[in-house]
């Protein structure tokens, strides 16, 4: 239905800065989003992702810079004139209205006729699989259903852009994962431009066409999920995305760094920075027999801890120089049988293609163990 009248727009944020006294909530941020693209803003709390979303929705004014929707400069435009659908973390459904009245609200605000309105409300509710719930009160709906009502309300008036502010964070894990897939499908079906704020890296990786990782009011890296995960731009991105251990290394030659005493080969470019770190992702460390024809870095060590986590074991290994890396061993019969015992010596392998060297920024990258 929406495809008929929908005209989703590009979004362009240009040198956006927002100061709160001395604090820069947004620091010269630029972002280009294509029509129909799903872009996630990922970052820890206080990174500026919600500020950026509020700038797009018009609830927060910029200190300087500009925002364009398509050709329209909306920097000075009031929220109600922006034609955007916003889905809030709290759902923000009107508690004194029924489901249908909630979804009809943006249509009535636009002067859509009663009959047309009814039809579009029905279509929107069908799209989020809530057909027949029109007359329910909002209080009678479960968390997941409420979020679907909020989604229906945000798409029913064919907005140029849909903003989602951590919409799934109040849901339990199972429901959250099924809603992630559902929102993705909805996105594909509508062809909508969507900007999605989350602090959950897995959610961002699952849902996005591109992800912007934010820190301290800046975008550290914007890339596709695969690019972001396997080619982090710096130690912050590496530590925030994926299950990564960061260890300081020194450049030895064009393709070799030293980790303590050991030399690590990499097939990748080593960035031109003074301080470097190797980003070792848990799933890239291999334990057990490997194809010896491939080029491997070998990391001998001692198992210091093994934690059962349901689908996998998390194994901590102390390698030379007293540093600890972690790897995962899946919990199937073979994995469990060959599980290394705490205190035993172990040999880990890291493919040269998986040996990620990142520049170390200032005082940020507290490496996750």
């Amino acid at each position, binding site marked *: 239905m929406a495809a008929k009248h929908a005209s989703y727009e590009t979004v362009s944020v240009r040198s956006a800065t927002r100061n709160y006294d001395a604090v820069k909530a947004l620091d010269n941020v630029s972002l280009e989003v294509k029509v129909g693209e799903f872009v996630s803003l990922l970052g820890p709390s206080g990174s500026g992702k919600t500020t950026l979303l509020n700038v797009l*929705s018009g609830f927060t004014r910029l200190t300087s810079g500009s925002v364009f929707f398509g050709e329209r400069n909306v920097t000075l435009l009031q*929220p*109600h*004139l922006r034609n955007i659908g916003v889905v809030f973390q709290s759902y*923000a459904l*009107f508690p004194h209205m029924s489901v249908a009245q909630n979804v009809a*609200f943006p249509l009535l*605000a636009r002067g859509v006729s009663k009959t047309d309105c009814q039809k579009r409300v029905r279509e929107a509710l069908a799209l989020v699989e809530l057909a027949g719930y029109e007359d329910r009160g909002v209080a009678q709906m479960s968390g997941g259903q409420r979020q679907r009502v909020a989604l229906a*309300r*945000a798409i029913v008036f064919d907005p140029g852009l849909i903003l989602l502010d951590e919409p799934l964070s109040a849901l339990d894990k199972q429901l959250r994962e099924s809603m992630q897939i559902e929102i993705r499908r909805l996105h594909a079906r509508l062809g909508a431009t969507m900007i999605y704020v989350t602090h959950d890296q897995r959610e961002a990786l699952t849902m996005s066409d591109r992800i912007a990782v934010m820190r301290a009011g800046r975008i550290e890296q914007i890339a596709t999920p695969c690019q972001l995960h396997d080619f982090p731009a710096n130690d912050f991105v590496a530590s925030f995305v994926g299950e990564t251990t960061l260890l300081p290394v020194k450049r030895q030659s064009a393709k070799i760094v030293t980790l303590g005493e050991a030399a690590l080969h990499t097939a990748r470019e080593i960035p031109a920075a003074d301080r470097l770190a190797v980003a070792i992702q848990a799933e890239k460390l291999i334990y057990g027999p490997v194809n010896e024809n491939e080029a491997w870095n070998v990391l001998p060590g001692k198992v210091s801890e093994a934690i059962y986590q349901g689908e996998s074991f998390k194994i901590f290994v102390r390698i030379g120089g007293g540093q600890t890396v972690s790897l995962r061993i899946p919990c199937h019969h073979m994995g469990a049988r060959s599980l290394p015992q705490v205190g035993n010596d172990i040999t880990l392998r890291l493919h040269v293609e998986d040996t990620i060297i990142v520049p170390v920024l200032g005082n940020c990258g507290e490496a996750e163990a």
Partner: protein
Amino acid sequence: MSASAPFADNAKALRAMERRERLALLALTLPALAVVALLLVAPLCHLFWQSLVDAKTGEFSLINYARIMQDPGYALTFGRTFLTAALVTLICVTLGYPIAFLAAISGQRSAMLILAMVLIPFWTSVLVRTYAWLVLLQHSGLVNRGLQAIGLIDEPLALVHNLTGTVIGMVHVMLPFVVLTLYGNLKQIPEDLGRAASSLGAKPMRVFLQVILPLSAPGLMAGAVFVFVLSLGFYITPELMGGGRTIMVAMLVQRNIDIYSEFGAASAVAFVLLGLTLFILWAADRIVPIERILGEK
């Protein structure tokens, strides 16, 4: 098995524990209940009995109530009292809503300042405030002279010793009730709702009328009922500001006793007022249930 016996004992002990806790809670409310019984219920019963006795014969009679029904002066006073209370309520709600709204959307510091300005007069004696108003509003008072000085009026306005004075004085006393109840209510409305409404394309007026106003109805209703009911029993302000021209029901009670020593008649008037007030509360509860006014959504 032998284990079943201790289980049964535990159930009994747990029940006893629950009973003890309930009794303890009851004991805590006992002093307050005693005060209410002693100082409210008992005197009310006495007044009610008094209202049913003919002062001349000392016998049971409905003469006091019959007089209220028959004498048009009573009906007039009751009517005037209700109209004055309604007028005061209307003005308080109209003036109080914007103040409460501003306080609710302001930052903490500005909100405190606004509420302080509302509360400081609230903490001042009604008598002091009423006399202050008399000084301000009298024939050659500050307000009249100021208006004359800037040329808005030629003759001094009659601002006291009439209904106008009564209403001004009462609004001043009652305004904090509306502002405080509404503020508490408005503060509970999540900020996201207003934002959601405007992101969905609603102009500010629409956001207010369709989202904020309906959701603040309980607070509005609570404030209005508060003001209306309290206004019905007002005495000092109409007495001083009305200049004997706006007789309210409470003054009728006082006159019956002070001038005519008619305790029975005074009690009957008080009971009719009490009955009408309870009726209004019941009617208000039908529109917006009391549970909602008291904070449960």
